[in-house]
């Protein structure tokens, strides 16, 4: 994770010199910060305070185990059952289900909606997440009407289901960063597909709810990628550690 950023605790006073100021843009607060009118900005979780002066925004990077849905998060969910007009999906075990409308798929109409079995994994986006309400998911971009890679992942009935692995929420976020190697310090997937891993062929879907789906032709590759991800997460490995891990796993599982 990025270093050099101050660590804050819940309820702590933030040093005013850390708060970015911009002549025109309003200050934007991200996850983990709360504005108490008129002038206080208070962290609500423990983590690293990150600021972006160009966008005049600040937020907190933290790791946790409980996923709280936030709009436009990409998540890997599991179908619980179908109701008349929506699927009920589990974001994490033992929490209230989210709804995924039958018509929230690419090109879906009342007659041509996808039929998903209970237990199927679906890669979706959180469309709506209000407090005290069940979250709503979608597998289609409302603006373009395209799926953009969202939808059911793998085909368990045909024997190519892939597998989902649990990781911590902070690690899932680092994997999802646009420049995950530079900003998040995670290069394990690139290494597996690149020189260190001997060019393994696999596909992944990283859910912000701490689940990563890995699919490949060969079961060995899926297990290898899954183990690499979980061990990187649990061991808190840096880039050099990840390189060594990938080399070791590839040697072990040849």
């Amino acid at each position: 994770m990025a270093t050099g950023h101050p660590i804050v605790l819940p309820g702590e006073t933030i040093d005013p010199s850390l708060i970015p100021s911009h002549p025109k843009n309003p200050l934007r607060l991200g996850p983990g910060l709360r504005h108490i009118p008129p002038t206080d900005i208070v962290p609500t979780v423990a983590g690293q305070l990150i600021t972006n002066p160009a966008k005049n925004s600040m937020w907190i990077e933290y790791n946790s185990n409980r996923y709280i849905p936030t709009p436009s998060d990409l998540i890997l969910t599991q179908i619980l059952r179908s109701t008349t007009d929506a699927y009920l999906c589990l974001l994490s075990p033992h929490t209230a289900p989210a709804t995924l409308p039958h018509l929230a798929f690419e090109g879906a109409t009342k007659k041509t909606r996808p039929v998903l079995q209970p237990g199927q994994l679906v890669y979706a986006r959180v469309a709506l997440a209000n407090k005290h309400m069940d979250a709503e998911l979608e597998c289609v971009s409302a603006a373009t009407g395209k799926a953009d890679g969202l939808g059911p992942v793998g085909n368990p009935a045909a024997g190519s289901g892939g597998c989902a692995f649990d990781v911590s929420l902070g690690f899932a976020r680092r994997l999802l960063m646009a420049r995950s190697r530079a900003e998040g310090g995670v290069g394990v997937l690139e290494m597996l597909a690149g020189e260190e891993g001997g060019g393994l062929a696999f596909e992944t879907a990283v859910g912000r709810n701490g689940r990563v789906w890995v699919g490949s032709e060969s079961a060995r590759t899926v297990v290898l990628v899954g183990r690499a991800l979980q061990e990187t997460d649990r061991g808190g490995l840096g880039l050099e550690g990840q390189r060594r891990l990938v080399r070791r796993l590839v040697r072990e599982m040849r």
Partner: protein
Amino acid sequence: MPREAEPSLNEKQFVTQALQENLRLDGRQLDQYRPLELTFGDQYGVADVTLGKTRVLAKATAEVTVPYIDRPLDGIFTIATELSPMTSPAFEVNRPTETEVLLSRLLEKTVRRSGALDTESLCLVAGQKCWSVRVDVHVVSHDGGLTDAACVAVVAALRHFRKPDTSMEAGRLTVYTPAEREPVPLSWLHSPLCVTWSFFGEDGETAVLDATWLEEQVRVASCTVSLNKHGEICQIAKLGGMPVDAVVLLQCTSVALVKVKEFSDLLDRRLAEDLKKREKGGFMAELRAENDR
């Protein structure tokens, strides 16, 4: 009542498919256990067993009570298991789930009914006073292999446990405090341990040792063999599920013996280490006035 969350279709299909190729999600061999760790508490009779992410705590206690009327010469020995909601939201207090009932039944069958603890030695005054030994098993974290871990914990706790010394003089029973007299260990006859096999595939042809929680949810059958390091089988439990070939079961028991010998060695080693740590260097060392300062 909350139900246990089911694994997804993808995971179910993948676990079975990978096991057919002799692959497990954590990279273990099919007959390989996760690393088993055993530590003892400061008090006598507290054992903490971790098996991968599974963790079980066992605590043995003893008190003087009246024996059962139909068994005036026997002491009382009970095992109580508890799966708390901390382990999984599917478990509730005071409402035992099937997992919990099966776990306590298996432990009773393995440890109590195999006569591992000599209950006659717990008798103090025939028909009037006896020791009641109780082991409380707390499952702190559940990631499969509960029976195996819990059995190691129970056996370790009982072998580590020391009950207060007693004496009978002219019909008067005296129970000594640890300061007066060194507590005495229980009369332990043999150490039975459980080994659980899980079977996968359409005909249950793939046999796997120490299944994780995900694998336990996918398996088609399971079989628990309890035996001691001499190869004496105390019980075999195969409760429902797919039928399994008798030859496969025979192979399973012979592999189980190897594993039980490993666990027994670990148990002996840890007990010896703990004894050494508690050893203060004999009577003379205790009488010395010198101290670390």
